Every structure is written in C-alpha cells, then in structure tokens.
C-alpha cells in the first residue's frame, strides 16, 4: 500500500520562508531552497510552497523559485499562491513544479479547476481549502483566511472533487498555529466523503498529533510548518515513531 506522507510547508514572502500564528505575525524562517534541501535529505515525502502574500498583492506566480527548487531537490513539490489562470499553471509546471495549489481563485472561478484538470491532468491539481468552525459549521475562508464565505467546507470539497481536483489540502483555521493537534473529527468526515486524497494541515504540535491525524483523522498526508522549521520535531524521528505505531511511511 501507498505510504502516509509527511509534508513540510514553506510559506514564502519575498523569497523568504516565513511563519505566523493564525495567519498573522510573520517571523523569518530561512531560505526556501536551503530548507527544501534539508527537508528532502531528512526524509520529507513532498514539499509545499505557498506564496502567502501573492493573493493580497496580486503578485504573479513563483516560477523562478519553482525552477530553483526543481534543480535542487528530487522529491515532488507543490506550488501555490496567487494562481489565476491556465498560463500561471503552465508556467509553474514547465519550471518543474509537480502540482499547483489553488484556493481563493477556485472559489472565484470554479471552472479553472476543470480547465487545469483537463489540460494537465487531475494529479497536478491540489485545491487548498481554509475553513473555520463557526456557529456549528465549517465555513470556507478566502484570501489567506481574511475573507469569510457562506460556503460549507464539505460541499465545496465535493464540488472541486467533481470538477477535477486530484487532492484536497484542508487547513483548519481554528487549529492552525495552535500546536494543539489537527482537527480530527472534520478530517475524518472529509476523508470518508471524498474519493481523492486529503492532506491535513493546521495544528501539528507533537508526534502524537501526527499519529492521530493518520489513525483517527484518516488523512492521506499531513502537512506542517513551524514544528519542522523550528526543529521541534525532526522528520526522521517522527517517521520512526509512526512506524512503531503501525503507520506505513517511507523510511
């Protein structure tokens, strides 16, 4: 069977890796290409690069960075942030990205998901969804968590799956940055309802949290940032512990 994946996420701002709490208060966490190499050597299964300022600043894609990353690492990586068109996608894939991730733009022009999937295959389309649990429901948020919508998380996930998403990257805004564990209940529901893989994000603080996200949350992959950037959890050690808990990972 396919192994569960551990995915360090690098939030990029002006070509530097940054990390904030609940999408705010950004701290510098290093050079993305250097970090990418280190993670790849330590046993990361994939990497995700998100240009967190791209949407707000209407900046174009990260093609240059994608090329540099692709020159330096030999594991798959996803790039997201500010992707608005097929041309943006094409440029990133041509520069060596394996997948692209779209979030706000997927809500604004849902047909873009269909178009990317038709042209480049659904394996390269990751739809990222930021959601928050408010008044007994999970709602989708846009623009890096700054804009609330009335769209329900599961409805939206099912819709983008139909439109041709190959994976869902779900971030719980309630959990993100708290290091108190992933949003296990909703993850389990998402994973049960969807037929495509789910990448869980938001809340990783301990090795136990990763065990739980695979065993209870039924996630196919777990994404985290600060616990890796600030070396609170070492990937190799994390994976050895997952194996001890009978979770299949690549060692």
């Amino acid at each position, binding site marked *: *069977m*396919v*192994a*569960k*994946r551990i995915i360090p996420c690098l939030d990029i701002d002006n070509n530097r890796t940054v990390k904030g709490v609940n999408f705010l208060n950004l701290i510098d966490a290093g050079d993305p290409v250097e970090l990418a190499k280190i993670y*790849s050597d330590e046993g990361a*299964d994939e990497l995700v690069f998100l240009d967190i300022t791209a949407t707000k600043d209407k900046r174009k894609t990260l093609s240059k960075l994608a*090329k540099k990353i*692709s*020159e330096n690492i*030999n*594991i*798959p990586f996803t790039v997201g942030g500010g992707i608005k068109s097929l041309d943006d996608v094409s440029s990133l*894939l*041509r*520069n*060596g*990205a*394996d997948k692209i991730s779209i979030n706000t733009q997927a809500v604004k022009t849902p047909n873009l998901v269909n178009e990317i999937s*038709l*042209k*480049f*295959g*659904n*394996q*390269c389309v990751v739809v990222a969804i930021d959601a928050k649990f408010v008044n007994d429901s999970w709602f989708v948020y846009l623009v890096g968590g700054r804009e609330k919508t009335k769209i329900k998380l599961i409805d939206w996930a099912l819709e983008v799956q139909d439109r041709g998403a*190959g*994976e869902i990257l779900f971030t719980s805004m309630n959990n993100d940055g708290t290091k108190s564990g992933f949003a296990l209940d909703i993850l389990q529901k998402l994973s049960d309802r*969807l*037929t*495509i*893989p789910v990448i869980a994000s938001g809340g990783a603080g301990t090795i136990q949290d990763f065990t739980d996200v695979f065993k209870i949350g039924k996630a*196919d*992959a777990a994404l985290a940032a600060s616990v890796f950037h600030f070396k609170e959890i070492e990937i190799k050690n994390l994976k050895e512990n997952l194996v001890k808990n009978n979770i299949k990972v*690549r060692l």
Partner: protein
Amino acid sequence: MKIAIVNYGVGNIMSIEHCLDRLGISHNYTSDPYEILSSNKVIFPGVGDASYAMKKLKNQNLDKIIVDIKHPILGICLGMQLLCKSSEEGDTKCLGVIDSDVKKFDNKNLKVPQIGWNNITELKSKIFKGIKENEFVYMVHSYYVPKSNYTIASSTYGINYSSAINKNNFYGTQFHPEKSGSVGEKIIKNFIEEL
C-alpha cells in the same frame, strides 16, 4: 552517448532534465525523428490524459517513430502506459508495443489517484541493479498496467500491478524515478549506463 527526451508537448520534463543534470548526463529535448532514432537512449515522459497524449504524438507522427526505436527507451508514468495496447482512459488505442490493456483503479475503499510513495518488489531487470526489494518510489496515477510476462517490478494498491515493464528494448516505469529521491536517480543512472 546521445540521450533524447521525447518532446510532444506533454509531460513535465523539467524534473527529468534536472535529474540528468545532477547525474552529469547531457541530453536533448527533441521532437526530431532523426534525433530520436539515432540517440543511444530515449526517455519518453508523460503526464495527464492518455487520449490527449496520443493525439499529440500522432500530430507529430511520433507514434510511428517511437515503436521503431531500436535503442533502449524508458516510458515514464503515462509514457509507460502509452507503450501498451490500449487504455481505459478515454477508451484510447495506444502504441501497442506491449500487449497489455491499461485499467482504472476500481476499488471503492481506495483513494484515486494513488498519490505517494509505494514499494516496488519482484525486481527483475538490470535497470534495478543495486536497488533493494521493497524500496519506495513516487507514484501518481489513476490507471495501472496489469501484471503480465512483461512485468519487471510490481506494487500493490488494492491489487498487485506492474510498476515497471520491459519488452526487448522498451522499458516503462509507472513511478517517477526523477521524483523518487536517490533510489529514482539510481534507476535513471542504470537505464543510461547498464542497458
């Protein structure tokens, strides 16, 4: 040695190019039939939809060139599937080098596409020289090549399927060696140096 990567407007070839660069192997990304036929090794990439990819090959008459290649050729991912007879994806007639029909993963308990690292076992070719049984490689696919006499590596995702195939000078890997860390780089190196 001349290495060609087939250019038919399909496939994410930058990673393959960078992989060859890291190995210090020069290469030529080309759609020129003469260049392809005269190269010592040919890499045949591919991602996305099978029927779209076949159309692109035919538009450049590369479908006839590829089956004529006499040197070792390595189809990667969709490239491997296109070497087969047909694919359930868009009910597509493929190149027919290998007498297999590509099928869709059909198991309600499995996420499709399969995305991630899976083991390869029953390794049978020089392309796997120095590679241990059960090593992990990176796979991204919704369709698979069933096991047959041509299987030189197998993997399991609900069912046991071909993760690599070989007939004469034609080789295929379902996984992406260029994305499979040092194991994948070794497989590419073997393809260039051992076959």
